[in-house]
């Protein structure tokens, strides 16, 4: 390891330093405000440090980590997302737990896990990153120890996620047994040499895919999603739904690309099949859901279904670049949007007493009571629904373009069908938000913290900016992927 290697790993180092710093600070003086601020600062620093790391990219640091601009892009994203989550959680956890400081420590660790996944090009780093992320999340989910729902959610997540990790690992073990390699690229070469003659190979790949698909809550591995989203504290749900999924998706995509699993048509067709299932089932499940968190959980199933389309597109090597570009843009847009949506839920549940269970009527008339928050939610929902002027639209446009370039009509029609169903439940939230004062009864006080307003403004601006002027990000994506 030399200085350049360290520069390439700067984001991870900053995060690790941040974790240590937070531990020291907590041990020295308990102060939630300070801890949250420190965590946010370190996360932002980590995000910014990617710029420096990018100067030496791409660089293979040990066989485990590859610091390319793709990884750094997502590190930036995760860093900012983590920082926003930290700021959002500041008031939320203070209401929910009596010792909120460690929450931020866990958040930093989880973000670090996500970043490791972005770097990962090896089974070991995948394992470490995924588990760092997951284990921190178990604790984060169960953090509000006064209430019962987070506990249930955490237990479910722990058991199932552990099983999924085990499944993926078992699959890797079988692949390892067949090829003798653990690095993604070497694995792919090994597979090429071995050929698919060995009947264990493709089932092993399926095990790996299934284990990761669980983390992405792809149908049929999706049943945990609403329960965990619902039970977890709102900011954690936002983090779980955006960063955790994006990180796993990135590593899955990298695995498929590096090991060139797209050669195995049947494997990719399974992803296509699951994409269709997810798009339809996710949207159908969300359809009449009146609990907003559960609704968003189901909608995230659908969105991951949309994302899986890129796997099918990648079958044709000529379209891979476009597919990855589309996936990257979609992940960025989806992360921003999801953070915004759950940020709103965080902000409106901060004021009230303990409320994990946010129903539609809780946002009744939000437009008239808290216009800024309502605008945040409106923008987020429109983005999720893929309406123009928002990031979600460009993202969907990207996906459609990619799918059209590969002529995947069935997937496209599923996407249209799913999106059409989706409009209903997104609009339903908007409808509740625009209900007139005489049509609802809810007591809520407007948010007073500048933090909430500031974040709302930032998120609205980010989503709209990505929707109206995405060209620079497009260029950037193109430049790092070509």
């Amino acid at each position, binding site marked *: 390891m030399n200085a350049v290697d360290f520069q390439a790993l700067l984001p991870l180092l900053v995060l690790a330093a941040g974790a240590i710093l937070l531990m020291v600070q907590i041990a020295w003086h308990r102060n939630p405000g300070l801890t949250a601020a420190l965590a946010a600062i370190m996360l932002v620093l980590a995000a910014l440090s990617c710029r420096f790391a990018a100067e030496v990219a791409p660089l293979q640091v040990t066989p485990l980590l590859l610091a390319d601009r793709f990884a750094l892009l997502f590190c930036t994203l995760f860093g900012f997302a983590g920082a926003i989550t930290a700021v959002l959680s500041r008031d939320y956890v203070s209401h929910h737990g009596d010792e909120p400081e460690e929450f931020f420590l866990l958040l930093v660790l989880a973000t670090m896990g996500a970043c490791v996944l972005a770097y990962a090009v090896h089974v070991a780093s995948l394992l470490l990153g995924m588990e760092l992320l997951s284990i921190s999340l178990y604790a984060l989910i169960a953090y509000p120890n006064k209430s019962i729902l987070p506990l249930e959610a955490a237990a479910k997540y722990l058991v199932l996620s552990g099983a999924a990790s085990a499944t993926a690992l078992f699959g890797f073990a079988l692949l390892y047994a067949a090829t003798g390699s653990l690095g993604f690229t070497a694995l792919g070469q090994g597979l090429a040499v071995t050929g698919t003659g060995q009947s264990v190979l493709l089932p092993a790949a399926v095990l790996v895919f299934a284990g990761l698909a669980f983390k992405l809550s792809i149908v049929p591995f999706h049943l945990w999603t609403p329960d965990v989203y619902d039970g977890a504290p709102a900011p954690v749900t936002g983090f779980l739904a955006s960063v955790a999924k994006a990180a796993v998706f990135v590593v899955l995509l990298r695995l498929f690309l590096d090991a060139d699993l797209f050669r195995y048509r049947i494997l990719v067709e399974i992803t296509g099949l699951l994409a269709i299932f997810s798009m339809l089932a996710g949207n159908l499940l969300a359809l009449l859901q009146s609990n907003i968190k559960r609704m968003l959980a189901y909608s995230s199933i659908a969105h991951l279904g949309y994302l899986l389309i890129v796997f099918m597109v990648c079958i044709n090597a000529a379209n891979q670049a476009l597919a990855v570009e589309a996936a990257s843009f979609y992940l960025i847009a989806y992360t921003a949007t999801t953070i915004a949506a759950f940020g709103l839920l965080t902000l409106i549940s901060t004021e009230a007493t303990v409320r994990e269970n946010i129903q539609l009527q809780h946002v009744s008339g939000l437009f008239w009571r808290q216009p800024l928050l309502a605008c945040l939610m409106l923008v987020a929902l429109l983005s999720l629904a893929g309406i123009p002027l928002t990031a979600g639209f460009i993202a969907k446009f990207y996906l459609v*373009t990619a799918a059209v370039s590969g002529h995947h009509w069935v997937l496209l029609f599923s996407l249209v069908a799913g999106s*059409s169903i989706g*409009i209903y439940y997104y609009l339903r939230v908007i409808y509740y938000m625009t209900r007139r004062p005489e049509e609802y009864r809810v007591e809520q006080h407007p948010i007073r913290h500048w933090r909430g307003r500031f974040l709302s403004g930032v998120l609205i601006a980010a989503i709209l900016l990505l929707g109206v002027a995405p060209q620079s990000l497009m260029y950037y994506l193109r430049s790092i992927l070509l």
Partner: protein
Amino acid sequence: MSMAGLILLLLLGGLLAWQAERIHPNLPRWTALVTVTAALLYLLAAAPTEPGATMAGPHYSGSWLLHLKLAWMPRFGIAFELAMDGLSLLLLVLTLLLGLIAIAASWSEIDFKPGLFQANVVWTLAGVCGVFLAVDLFLFFLFWEVMLIPMYLLIAIWGHENKTYAAMKFFIFTQASGLLMLLAIVVLAWQGLALTGQLSFSYFDLLGLSFDPRLGWWTMLGFFLAFTVKLPAFPFHTWLPDAHTQAPTAGSVLLAGILLKTGAYGLLRLCIPLFPDASQQFAPVAMGLGVAGIIYGAILAFAQSDFKRLVAYSSVSHMGFVLLGLYAWNALALQGAVMQMVAHGVSTAALFMLAGALQHRLHTRDMGRMGGLWHQAPRMGACAMFFALASLGLPGLGNFVAEFLVLLGLFSVQPWLAAAASLGLVTAAVYSLWMMQQAFQGAPDTRRNMADFDGREMLAMAAMMFALLWLGLHPQPVLDLAQPVLDSLRAAAPFDNPVAALDTAAAAVPGRGL
């Protein structure tokens, strides 16, 4: 003249109207009025009438007046590209005029959040203007979708008793079909890439692409569905009666007056010229849907007891003529279709304004509870009579010119369909007069105390009456504005009609066509 400036003016005006509410609750409507008036004056004063500087592109014909192209997303060959020709100009004028009418119609109707209301009205106008101006297909789709949001809010917030259902239905129908159009647009652009080696969403680059018949057919269908849902054509019309009925008056006026026209515009500008072969094959089906819509809409209009619902179904019926005219695709029928877009916009807007005024005064739209209103409100009665007659296609008013031209043009292509469609003339008389009978004639309820139209409302009505008379008696300016556009569209996408004599004669006029 700056086309982007026009859209920007409306967007900013809407924002201003929204915020004006903080100062005084009556200020937003004035702001909106001033904004739209300013936009209209700007358009009328600054719009060129002569073709502008030449423009690159194989499918540019002399009919374009203005063109603007700013780089936007070069990654996909997407540009912020606007262009205006006579057709767009005509529809823009209609849009802004009806915008004024809509604002006038809701002048004193809105108590709840008037600022946001007016803002949504003005933003809808901005979106529609964008649709009429955009020549980049991506941009077109963007405006197409974006204009729905303020409209959705208008219905969902200020609508009547069943507003949620109506707003949702409206949005889902148009969105779902819009997504299909997005698919089609992307397929089209990809086809362009395959054929020319250059990815572009510009209309000018995409005109005249050749397609594998099956691909062309499906892609055309994507456009067709989106536009016929908006038009609306049978059997995709069912969102319309609900949306129109539940929308506040301004919403109904905008919906019927201009939003429906975007569907027709899309068919005329995009669907047929981009896919001439598929469209020509498809024309019998489309025309069949048109006839079905005419008859079906008329029958259902007659069945309604809700004033607004009746007018809404009459729109379904009238827009069937547009569909017929477009797919007949000859000079006469196209002119008729354009004329119908304008005339129907005006006449239906007026009827919705009337319906709104009635509901405001009587708190009901049920015609069973009206009757004899002529006695209490003779001015309303006279206006209603005028527009009912316009709606049934009385010669001398714009709608007649439109329907006559459509049928005349259609007759040379599909005489039997023309005969079937002309049944619509009879049924239109049935429901229009039935509406008059139920609402305005009969014995008046003497307990009812109802104010007649006031000066503001009469002014709006008079303007629309004048417009219809003008369109009916001297439609030539409108026809002249649209003629070069229609000629070049037909030249770009020729249908080989069985009876081509009329067309060749019209296209042979020097200076028109390609």
